[in-house]
C-alpha cells in the first residue's frame, strides 16, 4: 500500500493470504450452496480401502526411519539459510578470499557430517 511505509510494502503479503483464504472458502461456500445433500448411509462413510473392511487403528506409531531423515533435513535446511546471506554479499565483499575460505570451512564441516551419516548407513532405506 502506498503511503504506509515499510509496513505498507509488506502488507501485500497479508492481503494475498486473505485472497488465498477467499479462494479456498469461496470454493467451499459455492459448492455448499450448489451441491446435493442426500442422507448418508453408514456404509458409504467407511474409509476407502478398496472395499475391504478397515483392520485396526490407523493412528499408530510410525517407522523411526522418517525421524532420522527429518533430523538430517533440519541440519541442512538451516545450513541453506546460512549460505544464502553469504551468497548475497559474496560479489561485493571486500576480501573475497576470506569470504570463500570461511564458507569453505563451514561447508567442509557439513560435508564431513554428511559423510559420517553416509558411513553410518543412515542414508539407506531398508
Amino acid at each position: 500500500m502506498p503511503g504506509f511505509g515499510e509496513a505498507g510494502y509488506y502488507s501485500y503479503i497479508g492481503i494475498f493470504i486473505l485472497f488465498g483464504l477467499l479462494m479456498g472458502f469461496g470454493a467451499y461456500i459455492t459448492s455448499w450452496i450448489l451441491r446435493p445433500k442426500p442422507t448418508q448411509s453408514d456404509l458409504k462413510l467407511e474409509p476407502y480401502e478398496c472395499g475391504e473392511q478397515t483392520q485396526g487403528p490407523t493412528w499408530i506409531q510410525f517407522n523411526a526411519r522418517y525421524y532420522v531423515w527429518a533430523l538430517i533435513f533440519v541440519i541442512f535446511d538451516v545450513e541453506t539459510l546460512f549460505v544464502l546471506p553469504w551468497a548475497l554479499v559474496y560479489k561485493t565483499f571486500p576480501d573475497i578470499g576470506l569470504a570463500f575460505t570461511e564458507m569453505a570451512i563451514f561447508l567442509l564441516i557439513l560435508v564431513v557430517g554428511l559423510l559420517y551419516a553416509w558411513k553410518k548407513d543412515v542414508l539407506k532405506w531398508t
Partner: protein
Amino acid sequence: MSLLELTDKLIQWVSEMARTQGYSPEWAGFFTAIAIMLAVGGFVLGFISVVAMLLIWMERKVSGHMQSRIGPNRVGPFGLFQSIADAVKLLLKEDIAPKMVDKPVWWLAPIIIVVPAVLSFLCFPFHKGWIPLDLNLGLLFIMAIGSVSVIAIFMAGYGSNNKYSLIGGMRTVAQIISYEVPAILAIVPVVMLAGSLSFGQIIEAQSFRWNLFSLWGIVSFIIYVISGTAEINRTPFDIPEAESELVAGYHTEYSGMKFALFFVAEYTNMVIVSMIASAVFLGGYYLPFGLGASPVWMLLKVFAMIFLLMWFRWTFPRLRVDQMMIFGWKVLLPISFANIAWVGIWMALKL
C-alpha cells in the same frame, strides 16, 4: 488496451472519485491503495483459475498424444471446454466426509494448500516492473512459502484416518524435505552472481546472457528441475500418490470441491516451479543476447517448462522410494555443493 493501462485507468478513476466526493488526500490514498490491491488480487486469482484449467486440458491432450490417443475432443473446439465441464461437475458433487476423519484437520487441509499457492504469485515476474510485489528476498520467500504445502499434505494424510492416505502423507513429507535442500542449493550460485534475491534483479542480471549458458548454469538447472519435479510430487517422483499402490495417496478421502482445491494447488505449484526455473535460469522475460523482452517470452518459457514436466510424467517410470531418497542425498546434494564451490572459486579468481 493492455492490462497495465486498464489498472492505471481504474486507479486514476478511484482517486478522482475520492477527491470529487470531498475526502481528504489521506483517505483518497487509502481508497486508491484498496483499488490497486483488488485489481492485482483479482488479476492473480483469475490468472490462477484460467491457467489451472488450461493446464488440466493441456495435460490430458499431451498425455493423449503421447499414447497415440486424441485426448478430450468433444466439449468445445479441441475439447478446450472440457476443464470447465469438469469444474462444474466437481462443484455439483456431494461432499462425503468419512465418519472416522479428524474433522478440523481434514477440513482445513485443502484451504491450507491453496493459500501458499496463491501467495507464491506475489513474486511472479510477468515483465519489467510487472511484479505484484518485487520483494527483496523474493526467491527465499517463494521457497519458504512453498514448503508450507508439506504441512497441508501431511494434515490431509493424517486427518483422513485412512492407511493409504497416511502412508502417502508420510512419503510426501520425506520426499519434499529431502529435495528442498538441493533445490535451494541449486539457486545459490545464481544469487552469488546476481548479488540479489529479488526476481527483478536476478532477471536484469541475465538481460544479455542467460544463466543457462555456462557449465555451472546447466548443472544448477538440471538439479533444480529434478528437485522441483520431486517437490511437486510428479512422476517420476510420484510415490506419495502412486495410483497402483496407494489409490490416490493423501487425497484418497477427498471428493468434490475439496479434491478440486488439491488439484488446483498441484497445477499452480507446477506453474510456480516452472516460473522459478525460467526466471532464474532462462532469463525470465528476456530473449538471449539482447534480442528483446516481452511478457510473452516469460509465459512461453513457463509453458515450455510445464510441457517438459508433462513429458517427464508420460515417459519416465516411477522411482522406488529408496532409490529416490538415495538419489537426493547421495547424488544431488554433493553435486550442488561442488557446484557452489566451483562458482565461488571462479568468482574469486575473476574478481
